[in-house]
């Protein structure tokens, strides 16, 4: 006895098998295969001729130019394949990095010859040839057979019948189509075979297209090395931006804070000095007030300068992460439980990033979280440093757009990513919030 579930499953497959020859996906795959096979035929000829001639003429300069032209052409073929794949089979292959030539003809030549994308496209076009041949023989032929079998009654096995193509049919039943017979039973049998072939036809094609999808993903998208280079470039740009932003912030702090304080201080002392030098009776109260103000201003300027310097690089960080974090924990308005267990000391840059992350996160806890307790755990996992900051507050933290309250979080993520680290935010609405930062020990 078949179980109900099993029966349902079989019905499902049955329906699918029945519908598949008429589905959009099937026909799009067939169309893709047909167009891309023609494109491969043309593309391979182009590459074979230009590369062949180019290599043959390598000793002369023309050879190199031909090879370069071939690579540029292959890039174009790759782009064409990507467009086809996107429009016909919904396979979205990321664009590789655009070709950028250095200045001058020789710059172009050198850039073209070193273009990884071009070489990978050549590889695709070459590997695609056997795949296409196999696809025509194994998958496309089923469609052709199905077509001829289904239309057999129309041409009735007459003189116009095709002889050579029905690969599958001829393979399994040689001479099947060419049997001279006009019997009704024979015709019906061939027609029903055609129906069966039609039901089967989508699947080999799907397999071939699947292989092509893998091939395109591997060779026509951005290659891993380039992708790595690109992610490093992004990280570097973020770092550069972040340090420029930091410098701007420091300048602003200096300009609006300390510098203004000192100007005001000098102004008061200047006034006092002139009062002391004035002929006539000395207004000692006025001078006393000015000096008092100046003295107060000087002390404020010192405090501001100290805070600013500590914001740039906290001196306590020089003694190690544990000491620095315990200072932070002690300064926090929310009670913080701190655990640090590290076997080796991370590099200074990593320590600084960990420190500023914890500082920012604890400041967030104090400002936004309505938390009564927080904890900071610093542990080592192999070559990685893990910092977990946790609070029992109201949660809902997320990196927002620049300028909003939590743009600080965005900044932290950039900072952490600049050394290939990660910052994981787990902050459901209602809390608790758990922030997990993983940093390499040595950057």
């Amino acid at each position: 006895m078949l179980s109900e579930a099993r029966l349902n499953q079989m019905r499902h497959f049955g329906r699918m098998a029945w519908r598949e020859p008429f589905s959009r996906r099937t026909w799009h795959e067939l169309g893709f295969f047909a167009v891309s096979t023609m494109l491969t035929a043309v593309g391979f000829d182009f590459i074979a001729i230009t590369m062949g001639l180019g290599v043959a003429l390598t000793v002369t300069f023309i050879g190199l130019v031909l090879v370069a032209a071939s690579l540029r052409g292959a890039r174009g073929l790759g782009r064409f394949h990507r467009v086809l794949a996107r429009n016909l089979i919904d396979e979205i292959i990321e664009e590789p990095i655009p070709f950028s030539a250095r200045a001058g003809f020789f710059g172009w030549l050198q850039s073209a010859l070193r273009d990884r994308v071009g070489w990978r496209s050549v590889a695709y076009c070459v590997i695609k040839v056997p795949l296409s041949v196999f696809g025509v023989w194994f998958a496309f032929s089923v469609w052709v057979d199905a077509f001829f079998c289904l239309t057999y009654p129309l041409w009735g096995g007459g003189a116009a019948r095709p002889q050579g193509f029905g690969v599958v049919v001829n393979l399994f039943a040689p001479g099947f189509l060419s049997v001279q017979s006009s019997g009704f039973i024979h015709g019906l049998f061939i027609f029903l075979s055609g129906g069966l072939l039609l039901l089967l036809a989508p699947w080999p094609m799907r397999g071939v297209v699947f292989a092509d999808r893998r091939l395109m993903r591997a060779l026509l998208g951005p290659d891993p090395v380039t992708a790595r280079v690109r992610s490093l470039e992004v990280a570097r740009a973020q770092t550069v931006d972040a340090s420029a932003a930091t410098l701007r912030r420091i300048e602003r702090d200096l300009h609006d804070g300390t510098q203004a304080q000192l100007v005001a201080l000098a102004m008061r002392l200047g006034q006092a000095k002139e009062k002391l030098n004035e002929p006539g009776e000395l207004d000692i109260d006025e001078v006393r007030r000015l000096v008092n103000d100046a003295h107060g201003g000087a002390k404020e300027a010192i405090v501001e300068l100290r805070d600013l310097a500590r914001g740039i690089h906290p001196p306590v960080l020089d003694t190690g992460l544990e000491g620095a974090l315990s200072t932070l924990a002690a300064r926090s308005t929310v009670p913080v439980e701190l655990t640090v267990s590290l076997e080796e000391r991370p590099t200074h840059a990593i320590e600084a990033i960990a420190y500023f992350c914890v500082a920012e996160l604890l400041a967030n806890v104090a400002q936004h979280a309505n938390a009564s307790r927080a904890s900071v755990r610093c542990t080592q996992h192999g070559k990685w440093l893990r910092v977990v900051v946790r609070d029992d507050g109201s949660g809902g933290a997320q990196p927002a757009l620049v300028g909003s309250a939590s743009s600080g979080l965005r900044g932290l993520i950039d900072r952490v990513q600049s050394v290939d680290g990660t910052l994981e935010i787990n902050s459901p609405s209602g809390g608790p919030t758990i922030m997990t930062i993983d940093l390499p020990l040595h950057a």
Partner: protein
Amino acid sequence: MGDTIRVAVAEDSAILRDGLVQLLADRGFEITAAVSDPDGLRESIEKDLPDVAVVDIRMPPTFTDEGLRAAIELRRLHPTLGILLFSQYIETRYAAELLADDAAGIGYLLKDRVADVSDFVEALVRVASGGTALDPEVVTQLLGASRKIDSLSGMSAREREVLSLMAEGRSNAAIATTLVFSEGAVEKHVTNIFTKLDLPVSQSDHRRVLAVLRFLDS
């Protein structure tokens, strides 16, 4: 100008604004407004036109050069209004923009200059009464960057000193006091300088500032 000089102050740092207001009041100026941004300045000037406005270059909202923009605009609306720009840095480009049309009633000083209260007050009075007050730093930078090295190197050290003071906007009398010369000696130097630079001698102080600056900048 026999009456009290009326001053508007636009400065976003509260410490400096209060300090300035207090200093100017102490020196007998009348403060018509003390505001912290360009919009406040425009409004207060529409309401009550002062003789001179002391304007910080970097103010909200963008903290770049809105003070300068506001000053240029206000000058177009009120040609008699003196403008003393006030900044923690000297940018010669700002000076050039500010002096594009006219040097009368224009000043550009480093904020540090308030430490020497009398000099600052003197500069403010000069600007309020249609003169010019350029920071020595501006003049130094212009002299340093000038391509007219040939003409400049033909001058004596004394003449260069006089040239600098003249470019700052000082009168012959003031130059004479600063350098401890007689006014006649200053006049002789000035004539020599103008001859060496091949410039026509101007009578008013602010015209000759402009002439010298144009010469240095061209």
